[in-house]
């Protein structure tokens, strides 16, 4: 059963008013419309929630592996095409990271307890301050770039940065009561690195557009 007018209407070749007028006196169209309505309402009923409790954990694992893969591939490419200011910021950050990281490694080898002592703590705090300062400068550069991004992308980045900032804040609070704890400092370093990567990504996004 079919009606030419109905087909034209479905294909957008007849406007709604003309079709409605026609449908009032065409039984075939009325029947087709009724069937369509039932079909559409049945189809909407297929949009039921699907339970997948462990799926995010699986996705997160795949994203982490992908991130590591990209980091390996991307480091050389990034060095070749990045903005000169970015290169400078990256160089400072890399130097500080290597310093802090190297220090932590040496410290862990020498100290089983995970506690930082006297002069070591002073040095770590100094390097951390420099690292934080470098990130602040990068943040200053990235803020106007972020404002120019697509709204949804900007919201995603803002959300990511807020989460990282909250982690940093938690680590810093914990360090106030336990400043010599190398483990917390390592968490803090990871959060700071995450923030740096996010900021670099924002600046890169915008420079790609330009």
């Amino acid at each position, binding site marked *: 059963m079919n009606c030419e007018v109905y087909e034209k209407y479905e294909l957008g070749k007849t406007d709604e008013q003309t079709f409605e007028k026609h449908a009032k006196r065409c039984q075939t169209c009325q029947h*087709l419309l009724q069937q369509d309505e039932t079909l559409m309402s049945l189809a909407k*009923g*297929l949009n039921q*929630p699907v339970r*997948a409790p462990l799926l995010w954990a*699986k996705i997160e694992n795949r994203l982490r592996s992908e991130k590591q893969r990209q980091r390996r591939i991307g480091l050389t490419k990034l060095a070749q095409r990045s903005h000169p200011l970015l290169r400078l910021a990256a160089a400072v950050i890399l130097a500080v990271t290597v310093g802090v990281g190297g220090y932590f490694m040496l410290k862990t080898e020498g100290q089983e307890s995970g506690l930082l002592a006297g002069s070591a703590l002073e040095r770590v705090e100094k390097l951390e301050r420099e690292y934080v300062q470098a990130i602040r400068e990068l943040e200053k550069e990235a803020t106007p770039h972020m404002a120019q991004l697509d709204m949804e*992308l900007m919201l995603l980045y803002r959300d990511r940065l807020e989460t990282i900032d909250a982690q940093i804040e938690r680590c810093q609070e914990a360090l106030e009561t336990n400043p010599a704890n190398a483990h917390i400092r390592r968490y803090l370093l990871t959060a700071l690195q995450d923030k740096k990567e996010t900021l670099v990504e924002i600046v890169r996004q915008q420079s790609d557009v330009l």
Partner: protein
Amino acid sequence: MAAFEVIYRQFKQPLLNLGLRMLGRQEDAEDALQVAFVKLYRGIGNFRFGANLHTYLFRIMTNVCFDMLKKRKRTHADGIETIEMAHNPQTDLRLQLAEAIQALPERMRACFVLFAVQEFKQDEIAEILNMKLGTVKATIFHAKARLRTLFSDSQNEVRS
């Protein structure tokens, strides 16, 4: 990673549902969503073509589903046989519809699922599937015509 978790929480259900309707099995839908997220991660830098994230995600997911279907190399070309085989007035009509959707050709299935199940507008479907609006309209029209047959047959059998 936190940003991706936000996207996941927001779009998990419709994307999984699309995967399920396209691929027919939940394990495959979950696999498709994992691949889609990796693709999203890789391509997030390219996301600036004026489309919204919703459309962009569905485009990735449908492409992943098409790839998976290609790999599966299924043999039923137009699925009419499956519609008839699945046809049983005693079973739930919705279940029959789900099976009948599985039997539609891939592009037609994607058009119908996006339109009728996910309630996308036709121009959005055209963008997601990279098709012309007229083609989308015609495809949905033919999908409905095929599915309507199943539905009317089923009603007739219930009556008789």
